[in-house]
């Protein structure tokens, strides 16, 4: 296209100009004739055509760059005269118009049976069509549209689809310009995508192309959105599938656990049907495999068990039992133990109402637990029975001791009084030998009384929970020394009393304890030495008090030291030292009653030391059985 000022323009010209600038090529535009155009670039002619359709025939004569445009060669008819015809074949025997040197001419002429009318150029071709000289034209679309637009006859023209031919266009170069071709090729892709090229297209191809471009954009957007939706869909689908798979797997685990867990599980629907019964409950219910079947009535299953006497009704009427198990027993939180009638099973049955309204019955087999509890209870009963026996024996012993006290003590008292009265009456008449006999009798009765008293004291300390009250051991010791004054004076004993602790204890038993220890210390003195006795507090662990009674007496041989606390243990001849052999056994008993201990350190011929440890406050009563 040649402007008024003689310069050249057109889409192909402008594109080539831009491409040359980008490839740093300096081009000179010259006008050529149609013949020269048909001949193409070549030696002795011109170098380049801005654009030419690519074909094998042309490739033999000159070269092309990469394709720039796609060109459609299509049929055009007057609007409304297509009459169902679409392709070139449908126009056999009819007149087809073509433009000279246009690719349409070559295609039409190559077809047999087509009456081809060749026009000088495209505006002439359009005029031919409008005049109805030809039935249709076959021509490159873009240049023909331009002619149509120029003449403003778009309303009257109709393009047929599909295109008859599709060809690509590119810059045509004469042979020997390979370097130029490659430089153009290098900048082509970027240029085709550029805004410059798009602007040229808009300008030269007008609305048609612009709409096409919008469509393309829309298509691209729609494709992108579609792809996005498809991708998101795929993602959602795969996430859903994975979730579904996890849920399915969890369900499978849950089902497996429910089936195999060693706890009976039974689900009863709101209508009273068995919805689920696991292995444990089926196997541990008599005929459970036949009765506890999904879909069966729960009530019938239980009724059959009760009617056949397989369930221990715990003394209830079978009807009541059925009511309890199938009505009350389906309430949320209901829990009860029940047994099989043959005693083979004890179960704890607990009901949990599910959201669906179904009742979940959880049944634990507590047969072993119950058996163990029974064993423990039986052992406990045995033990309690034994304790009771021991207590009865203790009570009997104490009752026996009390009887001894009164029934033996009273006659010895009477006997003693008789002997004294007799001695008095016969005082002046008795021979010395006879008086000696009466003295022996009196001494014997006296030791009988002492023995009886000691036995009594001992039996009183057995199994008696001491009634504890604050006790000051200083006062106890003073009282004891006062009570033993006669003995102490006779033996010229010297007693040193250092401050003693206070505690909560039985006053009587404390008195007995201290008295026995002091009287022993006085009694077991060496023949040639007056007793010297020290009584003092000693160190004790927290919660305890301790004191010791030390003498300078005959002492106790190491091998005999463990014996002194035994009942009736006497280490000396009766004639040398009086006593019943109960004194230290009583001490031991009292100390045990007060949660304490009594220890002995002694060297024969040097003296003994008894250390007493007592609980500051006796909390636990001593065992009844001891």
């Amino acid at each position, binding site marked *: 296209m040649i402007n008024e000022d003689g310069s050249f323009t057109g889409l192909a010209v402008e594109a080539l100009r831009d491409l040359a600038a980008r490839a740093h090529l300096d081009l000179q535009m010259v006008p050529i004739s149609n013949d020269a155009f048909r001949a193409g670039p070549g030696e002795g002619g011109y170098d380049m055509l801005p654009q030419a359709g690519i074909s094998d025939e042309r490739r033999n004569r000159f070269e092309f760059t990469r394709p720039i445009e796609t060109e459609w060669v299509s049929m055009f008819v007057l609007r409304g005269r297509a009459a169902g015809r679409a392709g070139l074949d449908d126009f056999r025997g009819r007149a087809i118009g073509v433009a000279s040197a246009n690719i349409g001419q070559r295609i039409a002429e190559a077809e047999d049976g087509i009456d081809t009318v060749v026009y000088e150029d495209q505006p002439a071709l359009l005029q031919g069509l409008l005049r109805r000289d030809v039935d249709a034209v076959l021509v490159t679309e873009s240049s023909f549209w331009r002619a149509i637009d120029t003449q403003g006859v778009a309303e009257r023209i109709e393009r047929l689809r599909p295109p008859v031919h599709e060809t690509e266009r590119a810059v045509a170069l004469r042979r020997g310009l390979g370097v130029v071709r490659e430089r153009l090729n290098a900048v082509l892709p970027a240029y085709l995508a550029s805004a410059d090229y798009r602007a040229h297209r808009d300008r030269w191809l007008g609305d048609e192309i612009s709409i096409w471009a919008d469509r393309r954009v829309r298509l691209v957007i729609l494709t992108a959105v579609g792809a996005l939706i498809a991708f998101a869909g795929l993602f959602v689908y795969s996430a859903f599938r994975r979730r579904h798979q996890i849920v399915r797997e969890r369900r499978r685990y849950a089902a497996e656990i429910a089936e195999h867990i060693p706890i009976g599980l039974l689900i009863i629907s709101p209508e009273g049907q068995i919805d689920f019964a696991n292995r444990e409950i089926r196997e541990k219910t008599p005929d459970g495999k036949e009765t506890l079947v999904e879909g069966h009535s729960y009530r019938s299953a239980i009724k059959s068990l009760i009617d056949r006497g397989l369930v221990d009704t715990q003394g209830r009427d079978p009807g009541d039992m059925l009511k309890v198990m199938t009505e009350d027993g389906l309430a949320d939180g209901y829990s009860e133990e029940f047994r099989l009638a043959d005693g083979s099973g004890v179960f704890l049955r607990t009901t949990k109402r599910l959201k669906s309204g179904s009742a979940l019955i959880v049944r634990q087999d507590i047969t072993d637990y119950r058996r163990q509890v029974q064993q423990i209870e039986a052992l406990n009963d045995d033990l309690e029975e034994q304790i009771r026996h021991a207590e009865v024996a203790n009570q009997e012993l104490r009752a026996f001791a009390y009887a001894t006290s009164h029934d033996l003590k009273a006659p010895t*008292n009477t006997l003693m009084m008789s002997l004294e009265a007799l001695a008095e009456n016969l005082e002046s008449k008795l021979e010395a030998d006879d008086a000696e006999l009466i003295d022996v009798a009196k001494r014997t009765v006296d030791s009988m009384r002492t023995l009886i*008293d000691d036995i009594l004291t001992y039996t009183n300390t057995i199994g008696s929970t001491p009634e504890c009250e604050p006790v000051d051991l200083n006062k106890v010791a003073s009282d004891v020394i006062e009570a033993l004054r006669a003995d102490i004076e006779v033996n010229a004993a010297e007693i040193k009393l250092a401050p003693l602790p206070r505690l909560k204890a039985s006053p009587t038993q404390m008195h007995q304890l201290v008295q026995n220890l002091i009287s022993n210390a006085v009694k077991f003195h060496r023949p040639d030495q007056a007793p010297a006795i020290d009584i003092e507090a000693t160190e004790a662990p927290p919660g305890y008090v301790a004191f010791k009674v030390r003498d300078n007496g005959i002492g106790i041989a190491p091998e005999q030291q463990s014996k002194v606390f035994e009942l009736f243990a006497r280490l000396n001849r009766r004639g040398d030292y009086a006593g019943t052999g109960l004194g230290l056994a009583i001490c031991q008993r009292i100390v045990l009653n007060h949660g304490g201990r009594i220890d002995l350190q002694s060297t024969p011929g040097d003296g003994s030391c008894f250390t007493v440890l007592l609980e500051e406050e006796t909390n636990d009563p001593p065992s009844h059985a001891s």
Partner: protein
Amino acid sequence: MIPHLMLLDDNEDDQMFYRRIIKKSGLVEAFHPFIMAKDALAFMRRDDRPEIDAILLDINMPGMDGFQFLDAATEEFGDSFAKIAVIMLTTSILEKDKRRASQYAIVKDYVNKPLEQEHLEKIDRMLPDERPKQ
């Protein structure tokens, strides 16, 4: 000097020895021994009975025991049916008897059997000094 001493003990043999000791001690003006508690109560009901200075009381007796006698006498004659009551214990061990006896205001002391002259002397010392002592 103990003007009127009453004694309650079910053992007749022991009574004989008590009488002996009492006579020998010369501390008692009039001695009123009883074997059965109901006889002692009957004596106390008599209008012409003397004021009793001291009672020696055994605990273990058939029929009515020593404590039951104390209850009956207190209920019938009030807290001061005698100036002193002294409990005679067969053994010195039975704490519960002592504890029970101490709940009676009239019980002033305990003695362990057998009764001896020194026990009588102690009772004599405990009596209010109304008469010149021998």
